[in-house]
């Protein structure tokens, strides 16, 4: 089968190469070819690392790591719908939930990929670049972090905004300083606040349309001064209302294990985000001025998008800090700011998105300081050495 595919690409290649009929679509062809096969070109000068894992393979691993969360998210969409209106179930409960959620997620995924990839391909053709593979993950992430009732046209605008303003204006994949998926969510959050927060967006009322059944997420309940109605176990499993695929801690941990074993995401960032959030939670516990501050610190991991952000968003290799020390600082501050925003600012029940975007902006500065400090320290050592040797 692989030989057939190889032959197919080889047959088509001249048409898309320089001088061929469809040369202007060259980068599109190139994208599909390298999607199927590892490119056979190698660097001619300088030293380089030989490794089977190129950018496309890394991206696919992230998508695979996201699949447990995606599947659970689908099931949870159906489950939440079932709790709100149990009379509609007409077949096996589990499959009903999964099927309902699948049908709700499919249009969101399709819109995100169609809009995003169209823009990516268009930019690649205009600029005569190769098509970048970054959108594989971004397009998968965007539908996972919005409420299930988000209207498709709003999702399309947000995706277009994220790809053009968040990424392409800076030069495409690898050049962006903000996480594009979070840019899309931030755009939705500030543009259409009534569709992104509040009590009437989290549970789909029916299979089609954007109507919702009123329900509050644990974070919204806490921001309103109540106690969360869901138990810690529910939140751990993920059977609570929330953005489509962020609710289940178990599913996210499965993804995290894959990312850590394959070495694609940085364990330093994951660990330090969790540490930062925990430290801030403990500090609030110690202050204990109101009910939200007295909430056990580990609740912050269970609620909302904290873990999802820590595992899949903060670890984005492009927008995170690059130096090892920088990663610790970057991750700690994300955790600290996320919990701080949640507890202190009731206007933003979920602080994870804003804190990751904020630290994305500061990541280059952190790196710069770390590198500058390193240079200074080594210079000092070198000067001392040369003085000693002079004696």
């Amino acid at each position: 089968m692989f030989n057939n595919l190889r032959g197919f690409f080889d047959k088509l290649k001249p048409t898309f190469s320089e001088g061929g009929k469809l040369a202007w679509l060259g980068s599109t062809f190139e994208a599909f070819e390298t999607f199927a096969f590892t490119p056979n070109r190698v660097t001619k000068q300088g030293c380089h690392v030989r490794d089977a894992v190129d950018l496309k393979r890394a991206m696919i691993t992230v998508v695979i790591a996201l699949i447990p969360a995606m599947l659970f998210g689908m099931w949870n969409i159906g489950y939440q719908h079932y709790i709100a209106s149990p009379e509609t179930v007409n077949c096996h409960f589990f499959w009903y939930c999964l099927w309902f959620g699948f049908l709700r997620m499919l249009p969101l995924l399709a819109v995100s990929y169609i809009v995003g990839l169209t823009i990516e391909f268009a930019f690649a053709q205009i600029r005569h670049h190769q098509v970048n593979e970054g959108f594989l993950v971004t397009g998968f992430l965007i539908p996972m972090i919005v409420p299930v009732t988000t209207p498709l046209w709003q999702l399309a605008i947000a995706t277009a905004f994220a790809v053009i303003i968040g990424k392409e204006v800076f030069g495409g994949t690898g050049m962006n300083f903000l996480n594009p998926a979070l840019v899309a969510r931030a755009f939705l959050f500030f543009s259409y606040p009534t569709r992104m927060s509040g009590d009437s967006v989290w549970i789909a009322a029916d299979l089609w349309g954007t109507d919702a059944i009123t329900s509050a997420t644990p974070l919204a309940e806490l921001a309103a001064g109540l106690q969360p109605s869901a138990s810690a176990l529910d939140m751990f499993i993920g059977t609570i209302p929330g953005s489509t695929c962020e609710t289940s801690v178990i599913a996210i941990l499965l993804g995290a294990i894959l990312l850590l074993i394959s070495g694609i995401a940085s364990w330093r960032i994951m660990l330090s985000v969790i540490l930062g959030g925990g430290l801030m939670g403990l500090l609030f516990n110690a202050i204990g001025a109101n009910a939200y501050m007295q909430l056990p610190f580990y609740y912050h991991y269970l609620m909302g998008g904290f873990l999802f952000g820590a595992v899949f968003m903060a670890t984005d290799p492009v927008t995170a800090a690059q130096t090892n020390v920088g990663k610790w600082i970057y991750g700690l501050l994300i955790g600290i700011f996320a919990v701080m925003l949640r507890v202190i600012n009731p206007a933003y029940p979920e602080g994870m998105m804003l804190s990751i975007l904020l630290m994305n902006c500061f990541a280059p500065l952190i790196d710069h300081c770390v590198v500058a400090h390193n240079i200074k320290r080594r210079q000092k050592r070198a000067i001392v050495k040369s003085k000693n040797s002079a004696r």
Partner: protein
Amino acid sequence: MNVKKLLIEPLRKTNPVTVLVLGICSCLAVTAKLKPALVMGASVTVVTAFSNLIISLLRKGIPSRIRIIVQLVVVATLVILIDQFLKAFAYDVSKQLSVYVGLIITNCIIMGRLEAFALSHGPIESFLDGLGNGLGYSLVLVIVAFFRELLGSGTLLGYQVIPLSFYEAGYQNNGLMILPPMALIIIGIVMWINNSKTESK
């Protein structure tokens, strides 16, 4: 004297906002609605044109060591005149613009044109240059305000433009358009389009 060049070039090729990147602050502040943007654009155009004219007339008599102070006096006088005029004849717009009319005095475009052009050119040329630059500024202001009001409020000059049936079908105004960050992004997009067009020529 090339009248066309003085008037047309600042609209595209040497636009004070998109090419020289001056006067961005007021672009963010007054462009949430079209009407204040139009009034602001007109005010700045009047001030740049007449301050250019006056400074150009005085240019041989101004000692160069105190020229900035003289320029400031002239600009401030014109700005106060405009402010009083707006308060008398367009009170509601003047309230919307609030401090930004007074802040025209700190608009970099005006001082920039005085220093770069009026001090070394004749009065008529200077007047046209001020007019052109003011219009270039107004043009960007109006473009940004047009999109922000249309997409952010669904209106233009206060009139409902997007039909109400759209809203019933699920359309929503874009709240981000009302916030200043979006003004910055739209100016960026205008710059992008403008620069890529002028570069290719």
